[in-house]
């Protein structure tokens, strides 16, 4: 695959937005000057600028938010004689203990496994791409697409809390309130999505040998 010709080799550049292929212009020294797409006017880059730094930064921020998201309670369910504050994990455990194993699995996967997976995958992608290795390039590309795909679904927990707290409002009998944890969880999801967005998958293919 690495034998295939590349746009850079052929002096071409494609627009990130409208996918128009233009003739590549050598990067000028002047940082104040940008090449823009003649059709849609968005900036033209061979690769997303500062992709590593951005992804790393956002990923780190997401991870930092992930800790309080799991430690702080995300939801308070108050019924007639009981007030329950649940973190994600305790909610999963409660579901499991109360016999809703399927739900527990879904919540566990959506709220714990998926973000963890994202951190791992994005971390792997970043490190491997940074090293410009040609190891399992195709699989890495697939991984990236997977991350892009599941990113939307990690908001499940946030939606559950938002829906429940809007619907279950029977004052004394039963009440569901969001707690700070859900904010951090939402931040984690948003930041990981931004991180995966700011990662340029073309970097996977920029292996060392092809760069020469």
């Amino acid at each position, binding site marked *: 695959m690495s034998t295939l010709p590349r746009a850079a080799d052929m002096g071409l550049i494609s627009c990130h937005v409208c996918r128009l292929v233009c003739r590549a212009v050598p990067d000028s020294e002047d940082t*104040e000057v940008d090449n823009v797409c003649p059709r849609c006017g968005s900036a033209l880059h061979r690769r997303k600028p500062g992709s590593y730094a951005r992804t790393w930064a956002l990923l780190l921020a997401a991870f930092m938010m992930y800790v309080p998201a799991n430690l702080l309670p995300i939801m308070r369910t108050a019924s007639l*004689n009981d007030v329950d504050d649940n973190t994600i994990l305790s909610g999963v455990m409660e579901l499991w203990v109360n016999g809703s194993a399927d739900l527990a699995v879904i919540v566990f996967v959506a709220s714990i496994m998926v973000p963890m997976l994202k951190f791992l995958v994005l971390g792997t992608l970043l490190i491997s791409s940074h090293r410009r290795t040609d190891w399992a390039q195709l699989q890495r590309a697939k991984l990236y697409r997977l991350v892009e795909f599941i990113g939307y679904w990690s908001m499940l927990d946030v939606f559950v809390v938002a829906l429940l707290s809007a619907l279950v409002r029977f004052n004394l009998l039963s009440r569901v309130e969001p707690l700070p944890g859900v904010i951090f969880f939402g931040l984690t999801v948003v930041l990981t999505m931004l991180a995966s967005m700011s990662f340029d998958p073309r970097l996977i293919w920029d292996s060392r040998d092809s760069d020469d």
Partner: protein
Amino acid sequence: MTDENSNELGKPERDELPRPVVKRRRRFSASLIWLVPALAAVIGISLIINSELQAGPEITITFLTAEGLDAGKTPVKYKNVVIGKVNKITLSEDRSHVKVKVALEKNAKSFATQGTRFWVVRPRIGIGGISGIDTLLSGAFIGADVGDSQAPQEDFQGLETPPAVNHSAPGRSFVLHSDDLGSLDIGSPVYFRRIQVGRVVSYHLDQNGKGVSLQIFVDGPNDKFVTTSSRFWNASGVDVSLGADGLKLNTESLATVVAGGMAFQDPAGPHDSTPAGQDAQFQLFADQGTAMAPPDGTPHYIRMRFDKSMRGLDVNAPVEFLGVKIGNVVSVRLDYDEKAQSFPLIVGAVVYPERLGTAYDKLQALVKARGENPDMTLMMGRLVDHGLRAQARTGNLLTGQLYISMDFIKNAPKVAFDPNARPLMIPTTGGSFDKLQEQAADIVDKIDKIPFDAIGKNLNQTLAGLSATMKQVNGKTLPELDNTMKGVQKTVNTAGDALSGDSPLQQNLGTTLEEVQRTARSLRVLVDYLSDHPEALIRGRRPDAKSSPVATPAAPTNPPQQGSKP
């Protein structure tokens, strides 16, 4: 510009490809993106610091049971404000109780001090009322009440029942001593003039086991009514008294009938009315009567020996001195006297000489003035010399209840009094009822001795004689008496005729009397003349006295008045 650029670059191979437009624009430095994780880090660190700062001390409370407590949920509340949360519940090593770890909040640090009390608020239904209803729905919580101390403490012994009084509540607590608890309990009300002003906070046995100490709390501002001379009494139950004014039923309130209670009041009359201090000690009396009685002073134990059966003399029977109750019988025991080979009864009693009031004070002053030991023994010895004796008397003729009465008996035989004997031995004399019995027996004896048979025989003979006499009287004497009576009647008739108005005797008498009247008149004229002219007695009537007879008619005007008398 753009055209030139594109021409230069795009010329060599494919002119159909568009060329990018070069545009001058501002760009943010890519490194600015690191602000995002930095911000996240700041948030994370601030969270950690916040939770560190928020964390208060962790304390351990020991309870008998963890009923209603839930780790991670049960809150700790003070005045219904959450000050902490139960973290963990574990059994103690010996499994006799549970240890509840509580994470207090930062601002509740002052609760981790000595004197703070913790208890579990659960719904409670007691005789005194229902509490903690709200916890039926919200679940149990741990209540807290802070003390005064600032010394930190981490391990607490939880109370099994909520304290009756909060520490900060205005008012004062007092300590009462009583022989027994009666029907009082924690929370039993304390009444002042039948208004509840406080309650029993706690009670415990005295160290020596001879009494009970109760701690009560009287709410402010009513605590000022507890004075140094206040008397407390147990107002539990119903007080039924049968007095001269009929049946009396007395109770503080219906609640005290069931749950018990106590009341206090100042004694009547002049007394010290300074409010009692915190934790002042008082005696709790059994009823209002004993509470209001003057103080008893120190008790003295005395002993009496009775030679007769003391049936009806019970423990607690009163001991009276000249009708004033001064004590109670505390024991009645049988003894054996070897010399007399009899079974005397030894009656022990406790007397309070101060109940004699002024008499006791005066006697004591007298003894002191003599320079003797102001003890009761010498005084008692003197009283015994003067004839003081103990007697068992009947207090109630229906039930035959006896009481001990100490009286001065006239002509009592002298007895030896040992002032050094402990306890004091008071000489006794037979009871009034005994004496009455003896006297009655004497009378019966004497009546027995009267020869009723002989008296009856004599009486019979006399009556027979009387009967014969009567016969004679009826047969002979009475007819003769009849004749005599007739004669008498005749005589009376004659006398009546003689005295009637138209009898000659009567008329003669009238004329005779008129004559006498006339005579008297002339005699008066003579006397008048003589008193005016005494010389006429010698010289005879003078001729110039003509005027006199003229004057005299003035005098005779009187005589008719006088003469009218007859």
